[in-house]
C-alpha cells in the first residue's frame, strides 16, 4: 500500500500556474526519484507536499498521506506532520542550519517540539540520531556550531534533524548537488541505508539522472510543471516513452567527438614548474610564528599547443588558486609559469602579447557579465589587450563575427545580458574568450552550472572551436564524467598537489593513486542498458 499518493496536484503562485496535474505515489521502503532540469517544478512539488509553499500560492488536488489529505489539513495539523511523519532535507547545507544554535540543540528541537520528553531524553535521541547519520558524537559533539562543520557534515546534521523522530517519509531536495562527488556518494548510500533500516519512504529530487538512476526504485520525470513520464526505474530506462526523457538520457551521457591525436603539435604552450602559493594564516596568539597554508604545492605540468587537458579535484584542493595564478591574478611564492615562452608574473604588467594568448570562461553564467554593459561591449573587452586595438567599426565587426561563430546572432551584440538564458550566456562568454584568438582557454567549471541538455551543446561547440582555431583548453571541473568525455589528458589534484597525471582514458581505466580511484568510484554513471536490480 502506498504511503503517499499525490493526485491532480495543481499549484499556482500569484495566478501563474506552476504545477499541473501532478500524480505521484511512494511506498514505505522505496525511493521515488524526481528528476528534471531547472524550473521543471520538482522542488515546488516537494514544498507542496510539505505545505510550505511561498505566500500567495494556491494549491488544489489531493495529497493523501496515510489516507489523510494533507492538501486540506489545517496549519496546526501540518505542524504535527512536519518533522514527525514527514522529514525534509534541502539543497544548501551551508545555509540550512541556524548559525547561532548548536547542532545538538537543532536536532533536539525536532524531538522536543513534537513530544514532551525531558532534556536528557532529547539528548539521548540526539546522540543516537547523530550516530545514525554517521557523525559519531565522540568526534562531533552536539555542542558544535554549524560553522565548525564541513558541507557534507552539515548535510548529515540536516538529515539527522529530519529523521530524528523516524518519519515515515523523507523528502530530500537536491541533497547532494552542492557537495563533492565522494561526499555525494557517501550521503546517497547513507540515505539508502536509512530507507532500508527504517522502512522509510524517500522522495529524492535531483537534476542528475545518474544520481536518480543509481538510487531510486521509481522515477518521475518532470518538465515545465508536468510529470512527463513515471514508473519503475527499470521500466523507464528500458522502455523509455517520452522524447524528453530520451533526450535527457542522451545528454547525460553525451560524449563530444574528441580531437584526433594527430592534430596535436608537440610544442609546449603552457609550462607550469614547481609552482607554490602560500597564504598567510592569522596568528592564534600575538607572539606565534607566522603560519602559512600552502594552497598550491609544487605543481608542475605542461599543456601542449591545441591540447585539451582536464584538471579535477574536490573543492578546496587548490584548483581555483592555480587557475588564478596562471591568469596572472595571484602572487606566487615559488616556481614559474611560462606561456608560449614568456613568464607570467602577477602584479607586474603582463605583456599585451602574452595576455592575448590566454582567455578564461567562468562557471557562473550570471556573474560573468557586467549587467550594465551591452553584450557587444562585454565581448569586445579582451580587445583591450591588443597592441593594435582595432577601431570601433572593426571591433563591432569582430564581435558580430564571433557571436555568429558561437551560434548567436550578430544583432545580439546590442542586447543586454539579462535577455539571455544561461546556455546563451555561456556561449557569449566563449565568444568573449575567442575574440582575440587565444592559444589557451581556461574553462573554469565552465559547464557545471548548466542543465545537461545545454551542457552537451556547449561541449560540442568547444570541441568544434578547438578543431578550427587550434586552441588548447585547461578544463577544470569537479565533475569527472564530463572530464572523461571531453579531455585528452587529465591532472588530478588533491591538497594542493597533482597526485596523478596521464591520458584521460588511461587514468579512468587504470587509476594509479587511491584518491583517483575513490573519485572514479564515486561518480554516478547512467547505465546504458538498465539491468534488473536485486
Amino acid at each position, binding site marked *: 500500500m502506498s504511503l503517499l499518493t499525490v493526485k491532480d496536484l495543481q499549484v499556482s503562485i500569484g495566478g501563474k500556474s506552476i504545477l499541473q496535474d501532478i500524480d505521484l505515489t511512494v511506498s514505505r521502503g522505496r525511493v521515488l526519484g524526481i528528476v528534471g532540469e531547472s524550473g521543471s517544478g520538482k522542488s515546488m512539488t516537494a514544498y507542496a507536499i510539505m505545505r510550505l509553499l511561498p505566500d500567495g500560492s494556491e494549491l488544489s488536488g489531493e495529497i493523501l498521506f496515510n489516507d489523510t489529505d494533507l492538501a486540506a489539513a489545517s496549519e496546526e495539523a501540518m505542524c504535527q506532520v512536519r518533522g514527525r511523519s514527514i522529514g525534509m532535507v534541502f539543497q544548501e547545507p551551508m545555509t540550512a542550519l541556524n548559525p547561532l544554535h548548536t547542532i545538538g540543540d537543532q536536532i533536539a528541537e525536532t524531538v522536543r517540539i513534537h513530544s514532551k520528553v525531558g532534556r536528557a531524553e532529547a539528548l539521548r535521541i540526539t546522540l543516537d540520531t547523530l550516530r545514525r547519520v554517521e557523525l559519531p558524537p565522540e568526534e562531533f559533539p552536539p555542542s558544535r556550531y554549524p560553522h565548525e562543520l564541513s558541507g557534507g557534515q552539515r548535510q548529515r546534521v540536516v538529515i539527522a534533524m529530519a529523521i530524528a523522530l523516524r518519519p515515515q517519509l523523507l523528502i530530500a531536495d537536491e541533497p547532494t548537488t552542492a557537495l563533492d562527488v565522494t561526499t555525494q556518494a557517501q550521503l546517497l548510500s547513507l540515505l539508502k541505508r536509512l530507507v532500508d533500516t527504517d522502512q522509510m519512504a524517500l522522495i529524492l529530487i535531483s537534476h542528475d539522472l545518474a544520481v536518480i538512476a543509481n538510487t531510486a526504485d521509481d522515477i518521475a520525470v518532470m518538465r515545465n510543471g508536468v510529470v512527463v513520464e513515471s514508473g519503475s526505474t527499470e521500466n523507464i530506462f528500458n522502455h523509455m516513452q517520452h522524447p524528453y526523457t530520451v533526450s535527457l538520457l542522451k545528454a547525460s551521457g553525451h560524449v563530444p567527438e574528441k580531437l584526433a591525436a594527430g592534430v596535436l603539435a608537440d610544442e609546449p604552450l603552457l609550462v607550469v614548474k614547481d609552482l607554490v602559493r602560500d*597564504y*598567510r*594564516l*592569522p596568528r592564534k596568539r600575538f607572539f606565534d610564528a607566522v603560519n602559512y*597554508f600552502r*594552497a598550491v604545492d609544487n605543481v608542475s605540468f605542461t599543456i601542449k599547443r591545441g591540447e585539451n587537458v582536464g584538471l579535477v579535484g574536490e573543492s*578546496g584542493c587548490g584548483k*581555483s*588558486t592555480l587557475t*588564478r595564478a596562471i*591568469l*596572472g*591574478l595571484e602572487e606566487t611564492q615559488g616556481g614559474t609559469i611560462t606561456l608560449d615562452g614568456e613568464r607570467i608574473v602577477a602584479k607586474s*604588467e*603582463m605583456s*599585451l602579447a602574452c*595576455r592575448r594568448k*590566454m*582567455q*578564461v570562461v*567562468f*562557471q*557562473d553564467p550570471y*556573474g*560573468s*557579465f*557586467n*549587467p*550594465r*554593459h551591452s553584450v557587444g561591449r*562585454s565581448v569586445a*573587452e*579582451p*580587445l*583591450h*589587450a591588443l597592441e593594435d586595438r582595432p577601431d570601433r567599426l572593426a571591433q563591432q565587426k569582430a564581435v558580430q563575427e564571433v557571436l555568429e561563430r558561437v551560434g548567436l546572432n550578430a544583432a545580439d551584440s546590442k542586447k543586454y545580458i539579462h535577455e539571455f538564458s544561461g546556455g546563451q550566456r555561456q556561449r557569449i562568454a566563449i565568444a*568573449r574568450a575567442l575574440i582575440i584568438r587565444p592559444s589557451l582557454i581556461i574553462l573554469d567549471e565552465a559547464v557545471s552550472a548548466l542543465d545537461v541538455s545545454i551542457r552537451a551543446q556547449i561541449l560540442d561547440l568547444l570541441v568544434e572551436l578547438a578543431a578550427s582555431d587550434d586552441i588548447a583548453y585547461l578544463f577544470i571541473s569537479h565533475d569527472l564524467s564530463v572530464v572523461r568525455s571531453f579531455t585528452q589528458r587529465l591532472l588530478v589534484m588533491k591538497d594542493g598537489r597533482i597526485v596523478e597525471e596521464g591520458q584521460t582514458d588511461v587514468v579512468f581505466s587504470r587509476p594509479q593513486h587511491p584518491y583517483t580511484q575513490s573519485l572514479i568510484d564515486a561518480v554516478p554513471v547512467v547505465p546504458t542498458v538498465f539491468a534488473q536490480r536485486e
Partner: protein
Amino acid sequence: MIQFLRNRRNLIIGALLCLVFIAAAIVSFFWTPYDVTTLDIANKLKKPALPYLFGTDHFGRDIFSMIMVGARTSIAVALVAVTIGMVVGVPLGLFAAANRGALFDELIMRGNDLIFAFPALLIAIMITAVFGPGALNAIIAIGIFNIPVFARLTRAAALSLWERDYILSARVAGKSRLRISAEHILPNLLNLLIVQGTIQFSLGVLAEAGLSYVGLGAQPPTPSWGRMLAESQTMFSFAPHLAIFPGLAIVLTVLGLNLFGDGLRDYFDPKLRHNRRSEAAVPLDELALLDSEKGRSIK
C-alpha cells in the same frame, strides 16, 4: 496599471512631494507672492487667510513666500552637501576597494571611523565657531559627515563586486584597477548610490534645519525653515502658524525624499537590503566581509 501604481506607491507619493518642493524652490527664483526681504511690521502676525495664504511672521513677511525661498535654501544646502559627500566619498571608497588591504585602504577606513566617532552636531558647531555661521559652513559640516557614509558604502559594495567573475575577465583583459573601477564597479554602484544619495539628501534637509535652528545655518535675511522654527517658537502659543508651516515643510520634504528613496530602492532591486541608514548597512557588510576574508585565505 493599478498594480503597477500600488507597487510604486512610495515612489509616486515621494516623487510628488519632492516635486512640489523642488518646484517651489525653482519658482521662488522668479516669483514669490511677496518679497521675503521686505518687512511690513504693520502687518505682522497675520493669521493664515488671503492674501497671506500661510499668514505673516513677526516682521510681517509672507510665510508662504518664505517657505518657497526656504525650500531653495534647504534643497541647495542638502544637495551640495550630499554632492560633496559623493564626489569625495565615492572615489575614496572605490580606490580603497581597488587596493583592498593596502595601507591606503586601511588609512581611508580608519579615517572614516574617526569621522564617525565625532559627534556630528558638535563638529558643525565647532566649524561655525571657527569660520562663523552661514550656509556655506553648514554645507561643509554636513558634507564632511557625508563623506564617510559614501566611502564606506562604496567600499563595501565595491568589494563584493570585485569578487565577480566579470571583474576577473576584465583583469584578464589587462585592464588597470582604476579603469575597472570606472568601467565596471562604478556603474553597478549607481543604483545603490542614488538610493543612498536620496536618503542622505533627506538627512541633509533635516541637518540643515537643525543647524539653522541653533543659528548655524543660512544667515538672515535668507529664509530658512529651521531658523523660521527657531524664531517663531516663542510665539507658538499665540501664533502657531509661524511654527506649523515651516515644520510641515520640513516633515513633508524629508518624508517625500525618504519615500522616494525607498521607492527607488524597491524599483531598482527589491532584494536590496532594507536598512534605512547606511551607517547601519555598512558595518554589517564589513562584518560579512571579515568572514569572507577568513574563508578566502583558507581556500
